[in-house]
């Protein structure tokens, strides 16, 4: 699965939570939760979406590696190999 396909899934899941957000201009290095005003419930739902879609389990201890868009993409592609 290529990075752009992963991004596409991430944007779709985030879209369900923050419909009005405009993902094209999302800076890859910014803290996602602050930029998109996502609280802990939204974030958990996002992870549940990832788990359902891609079948990867994300333990709480890994939350730290999922701050920015770039982090999430690399975290996922590593898990999918």
């Amino acid at each position, binding site marked *: 699965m290529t990075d752009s396909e992963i991004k596409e899934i991430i944007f779709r899941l985030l879209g369900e939570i*923050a*419909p*009005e957000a405009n993902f094209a201009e999302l800076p890859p290095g910014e803290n996602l*939760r602050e930029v998109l*005003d996502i*609280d*802990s*419930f939204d974030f*958990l*739902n996002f*992870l*549940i979406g990832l*788990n359902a879609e891609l079948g990867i*389990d*994300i333990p*709480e201890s890994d939350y730290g590696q999922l701050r920015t868009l770039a982090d999430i993409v690399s975290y996922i592609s590593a898990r999918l190999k």
Partner: protein
Amino acid sequence: MGEFRMPSLGADMEKGILVGWNFKLGDPIKRGDIIAVVETDKGAIDIEVFEDGVIDEILVQPGEDAPVGTVLALIRTEKELPGAKVEAEAEAKLGKQEVVLTEKRTRVSPLARKLAGELGIDLSKVEGTGPGGAIEGADVERAAQTKKIAEVEAKKTAEQVPHIPLKIKTQPQDLQSRMRRAIAAAMARSNREIPHYYLETRIDMSCALKRLEIENQKRSIKERLLPVVLPIKATALALREVPELNGYWIDDQLQLQEAVHIGFAISLRQGGLVIPAIHHADMKSLDELMETMRDLIIRTRSGHLRSSELTDGTITLTNLGDMGVETVYGVIYPPQVALVGFGKITEQPWAENSMLGIRPILNATLAGDHRATDGHRGSQFLEALNRYLQEAEKL
């Protein structure tokens, strides 16, 4: 294999007691034979069998009672007979708790309420001339007159002030303004009427977070618990020890509420705040609390809340931990008499029996209505809250 079941002989017959069998194992039987006698509340009744065959197995002994439809015996038949399937209706007994709201409202006729909406009149400022001070249509029309005159004056003075355009998010205008007006009215009334006192305490969350970690390892991601669930449960249990914080201030007296319905503040993406109630929070398990909150958040954000959920909170809880705020000093929602606030859990230096260490600390605050309770009771509540979080395995 034919099934001989406890027959239903009438709408009001739910079960019968098997008095005796007229045949024994291996006996041949034919259609129309009286195979057994059953005791019902109308007396003993002979039970007919409707198929030929041989009794292969007896499943219910004389003296036992069995609900309608229970298989009493198996009958080996030459040709296979389609057994009559009896679905046991699962009577989903939905216990419905009635929440009795003893809230006294000023009396306003429906016509007056309608006109107030149309003419933009704040009913709390209208003098009622109807029976018992009830506000009637005419009263609202008079208020509209005086309001129009006042607006004309205000317009004159407003001309001098330069108009600075504010950048606000686009938002369906009426929903935003109506909600903003409702919050404004409540907050203004709270400030006007409620003498607030504030208490704060810092809670060591290591035990609670440990409990959470263990729980989440056992669970799939879908059932994962969020940290905020623990302080909510602790709050609910602490309220049982200090019930005076769980009620309403009405007609100059505290009206305690039996049920603990915690109003959970949920912010809307387009701005604005809604506080649906988690009903009977003290009786809900951590999983049930998580489930309820997830459901409330989804329905709040999609606008599908039941009106009862918005009006029957007995206390309000606001959790700004996600936002990175350390301590919250909240404003109580009338007619409630308390508000609990939780900030962010942060790593902080912590001294304990003269040893210094780093602990995950949660700042918990209580805003109390001094008419209903005093600081003493408020601090006992925070103390209980802390205690429950230190024995988090019991939550």
